[in-house]
């Protein structure tokens, strides 16, 4: 490998909310025991799957759109440095200020400083994965600044002192009676007679948020897209809270992962068709807000764009793994994933859960630091078929598993198996020795760990009297059964 003088050998890794304290199997154990969680998840993912499937079926050119989305993203990754500099130039020319953040800590420090410079002690926030990733809320609170989430589900998570468990529907693990309890406990000025009727809950949130919108001078957002050729930023959303945050305050600070840039305005044609149908199951998202720098007399008069790396350059350096950067955060892969549906998002330990999280989080942190996530999949492939930009998640999982530092016992067992299978005679003998498996107990009950994981819920098959190979040999020589 070549190292350029004066450059680090590898790009810095990501820090922030990208890794849990437990391994996936440990965290999944707790989640699987929570039957309320599983009911909530099954109901929610089944509903979104149905809606999304219906509107996708309306488009005769859906597969072509997926191809286009994939091709545009591959092009972006191939010339990311150029596009980012072009974006910086255009945003600056339009009156915005561009900041570059190598990791979460740098990004948090920049946002904190910018908010402090305005003199405001409160910011309103548009739902954003990037700011969840870097733990911006905690950093602001430490500096005495109050962040208020304005997306309803994100507000539920914030008031519940909880963590998001889904990219699109962060409070998917909560049902309405739990939401009522959270509001009663934590929402300032809430009516104590609040019921769990959804319109009543929504009205309570609206009353609280409306006051906050009108009295806060600084907003923080993420971005769904940024157009390099024009310097335009875009946020798509469903509730209108984003439109309020992006237009009402004096100062707007946007934190954007560097992979979100698109070359041209025309590329939005593809992504604005793909994203809502794959994501919320809508033909068009209710609100699409776009802005280019600062417009005198209209909207925020101070605009800051923070371009966040936090491990993305390191992902880009892997020409196979970089496909994970194509993600447009629609969460279609979560909604079709049989593993996610049973464990929920918290088991992944990262703000990016589900199949895309299992390939993105370990790459951002470095695979060794997140080694259980690439195995959090049965490789069923439903995510690949659902992905609007055709990220081959199963192949990426296999690619990352090959980089994981393996436990010594497993390494020895795999080496022994490969050695045997490379030698047909030894292999044939080992097959017959499989009969010995019968001595470990009736149909395998009583196997030692990790094989006991199999027999905890499943019997082993009866060991056949004769392998196929032996049957064939006997038949070939004319002595076996026909």
């Amino acid at each position: 490998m070549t190292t350029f003088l004066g450059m680090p050998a590898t790009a810095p890794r990501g820090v922030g909310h990208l890794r849990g304290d437990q391994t996936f199997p440990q965290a999944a154990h707790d989640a699987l025991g929570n039957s309320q969680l599983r009911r909530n998840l099954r109901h929610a993912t089944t509903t979104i799957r149905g809606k999304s499937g219906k509107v996708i079926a309306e488009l005769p050119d859906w597969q072509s759109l997926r191809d286009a989305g994939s091709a545009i993203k591959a092009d972006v990754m191939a010339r990311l440095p150029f596009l980012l500099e072009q974006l910086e130039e255009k945003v600056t020319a339009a009156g915005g200020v561009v900041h570059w953040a190598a990791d979460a800590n740098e990004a948090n420090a920049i946002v904190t400083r910018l908010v402090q410079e305005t003199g405001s002690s409160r910011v309103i926030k548009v739902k954003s994965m990037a700011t969840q990733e870097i733990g911006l809320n905690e950093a602001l609170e430490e500096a005495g600044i109050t962040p208020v989430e304005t997306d309803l589900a994100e507000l539920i998570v914030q008031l519940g002192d909880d963590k998001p468990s889904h990219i699109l529907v962060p409070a998917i693990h909560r049902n309405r009676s739990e939401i009522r309890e959270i509001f009663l406990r934590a929402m300032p000025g809430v009516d104590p007679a609040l019921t769990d009727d959804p319109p009543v809950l929504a009205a309570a949130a609206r009353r609280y948020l409306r006051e906050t919108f009108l009295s806060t001078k600084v907003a923080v957002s993420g971005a769904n897209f940024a157009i390099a050729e024009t310097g335009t930023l875009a946020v798509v959303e469903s509730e209108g809270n984003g439109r309020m945050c992006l237009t009402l305050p004096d100062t707007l600070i946007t934190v954007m992962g560097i992979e979100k840039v698109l070359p041209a305005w025309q590329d939005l044609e593809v992504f604005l068709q793909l994203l809502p149908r794959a994501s919320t199951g809508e033909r068009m998202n209710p609100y699409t807000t776009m802005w280019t720098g600062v417009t005198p007399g209209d909207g925020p008069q101070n605009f800051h764009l923070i371009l966040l790396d936090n491990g993305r350059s390191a992902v880009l350096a892997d020409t196979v793994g970089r496909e994970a950067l194509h993600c447009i955060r629609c969460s279609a892969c979560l909604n079709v994933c049989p593993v996610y549906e049973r464990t929920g998002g918290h088991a992944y330990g990262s703000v990016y859960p589900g199949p895309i999280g299992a390939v993105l989080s370990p790459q951002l942190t470095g695979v060794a630091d997140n080694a259980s996530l690439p195995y959090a999949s049965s490789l069923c492939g439903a995510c690949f078929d659902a992905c609007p930009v055709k990220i081959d998640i199963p192949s990426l999982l296999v690619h990352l598993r090959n980089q994981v530092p393996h436990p010594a016992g497993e390494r020895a067992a795999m080496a022994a198996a490969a050695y045997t299978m490379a030698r047909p005679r030894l292999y044939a003998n080992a097959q017959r020795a499989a009969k010995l498996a019968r001595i470990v107990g009736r149909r395998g009950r009583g196997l030692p760990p990790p094989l006991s994981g199999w027999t905890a819920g499943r019997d082993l098959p009866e060991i056949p009297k004769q392998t196929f190979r032996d049957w064939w040999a006997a038949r070939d020589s004319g002595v076996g059964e026909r």
Partner: protein
Amino acid sequence: MRIALFATCLADTLFPEAAKATVLLLERLGHEVVFPSQQTCCGQMHINTGYQAAALPLVKRYASVFDPYDVIVAPSGSCVGSIRHQHAMVAASYGDAGLASRAADVASRTYELSELLIDVLKVEDVGAYYPHRVTYHPTCHSLRMTRVGDKPLRLLRQVRGLDLVELPAAEQCCGFGGTFAIKNAETSTAMLADKMTNIVSTGADVCTAGDASCLMHIGGGLSRLRTGVRTVHLAEILAATEFIS
């Protein structure tokens, strides 16, 4: 037609009836089956668990053992999926470009059983007789890697005496996933529980599929719960007749 059988290590060792049935079925249809004795395993377990370098000799072995044959069949959508979609990749990463192109070439001549019957041998009615109520589980790799589509169902619909009942949420993974079943045993069995509920709801006596691996997992669960539902490989149903069943 002369057809080389790749029995797969799992069927060879633990589910020989699936491989035998493949032989008997193809012979009944008038074809010659050969079993190259130097075959072992496709290496999928190594590749999918993160041991691609260890899988390289197995990829090489598959390509050289089966290179002499024009048509190769395996009674597994998953092993065929690995051969088609992973062998050339492993060969390119750890071997050389020559091996990669040889692996891709042999892979292009390797068929899953239902593909061989419908696409190559152009037969849907294989003359089978199987008087049971049967539900079919489309395994993930046969569906989304090998892309056999509805071919197994088309074959099953022609089997005399067979009462085919639709499996609810059929395309959901059963939870096997190779070493996933051990590394994430609890999640795997949670997925299996839902699959079993759906299977039992059909009232079928038999659950069939094109992969012995998924059937080992599903069958192990059905047996543990004493549901009375058996798992039988697709090849065994297609090989069954009035005389041998």
